[in-house]
């Protein structure tokens, strides 16, 4: 029961040229084994063309309590969306 293997977060790039996406996590003694295990655990059905593994302890995450402070300011800035600006219908190409 000693020596629990470190936890790795697994990211997979799917077939269609999308960004790597978090799919889950696993334990492995080192990066090579983490990659091997990720292949067996998360890509048994052609889910991906590329795998990243990152030690969980190397990820810095925002804290849930900071959610309002971080994300609420964007709510009042609707002008960042193109639909904010009414455009004359007869003008094309906007």
């Amino acid at each position, binding site marked *: *029961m000693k*020596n*629990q*293997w470190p*936890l790795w*977060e697994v990211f997979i790039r799917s077939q269609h040229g999308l960004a790597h996406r*978090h799919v*889950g*996590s*696993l*334990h492995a*003694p*080192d990066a090579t*084994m983490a990659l091997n295990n990720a292949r*067996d*655990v998360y890509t*048994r*059905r052609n889910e991906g063309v590329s795998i990243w593994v990152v030690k*969980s302890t190397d*990820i810095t*995450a925002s*804290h*849930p*309590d900071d959610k309002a402070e971080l994300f609420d300011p964007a709510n009042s800035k609707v002008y960042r969306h193109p639909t904010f600006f009414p455009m004359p219908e007869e003008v094309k190409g906007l």
Partner: protein
Amino acid sequence: MYAQMVDTGSPSATSLDEREARFQSRIDDGIRVEPQDWMPDRYRKTLIRQISQHAHSEIVGQLPEGNWITRAPSLKRKAILLAKVQDEAGHGLYLYSAAETLGITRDQMVDDLHTGKAKYSSIFNYPTLTWADVGAIGWLVDGSAIMNQIPLCRCSYGPYARAMIRVCKEEAFHMRQGYDIMLALCAGTPEQKAMAQDALNRWWWPSLMMFGPPDGDSVHSAQSQAWKIKLFTNDELRQKMVDQTVPQAEHLGLVVPDPAVKWNAERGHYDYGDIDWEEFYNVVKGNGPCNRERLEVRNKAWTDGEWFRDALVAHADKQAQRLTAQAA
């Protein structure tokens, strides 16, 4: 991310009751709970129990079927069964990871399973006597599992719900491969069809027991439903399973081993007979046909693999030391 640093303390001055009320209203609004969010201790504990039991069931569930890998009737069936058993290992791993986000370690869970402290689904304490049992397990046991798990894809705890989505996709293959085995046997010789009937006779009742005790006797149901970690009652799910399975058995030309099974037009459901709950509790208590054997095999696999796990750690340590030495 599946962070392990789960905060259980309460840094703010708000009272526990107020926090719980806010937590419940978020759940009522359909907002998912994520690992770092505050949650009531009982919610955490209930989920750890539920998810780890589920994970243990996937792991132990490999054993009855693994029994038939070397004896599958053809190379095709063997390859399919290997893939299925590998999936079960994967399901166990997704679920262990989800449970770990709640603050329990993998080692603790593995230890709880191996010492017999933790429970797993009692269905896996029944033996697989013939090849038809592999078909019946896929069809009925995985069928019941899917019935139970599909609602959990919408449960309130994010990591659990996400794990269940993957599991359900893969379970659909398990159920179909099981029914495919039953189809082949039922289209075969009279002996093969009899084998299929025998497997149905033995797996029917245990599969219905998988949904747990009747609603009146189910201890944790109400709270779990309020928390949205259980979306239907045991009896609701069991009825769905009966309704789905009886016509499937008829298609195979097999008879469900319950003379009380009859379509009830008024209810719009199949009626079915009383379940022998004494048998269920007996198996849960550890007196099923294979309880002891399952734990022995698990423990042996764990102990036999120890040298290999140790070697992997030794190798990783050596590589890390070399890197440090090079950098110095």
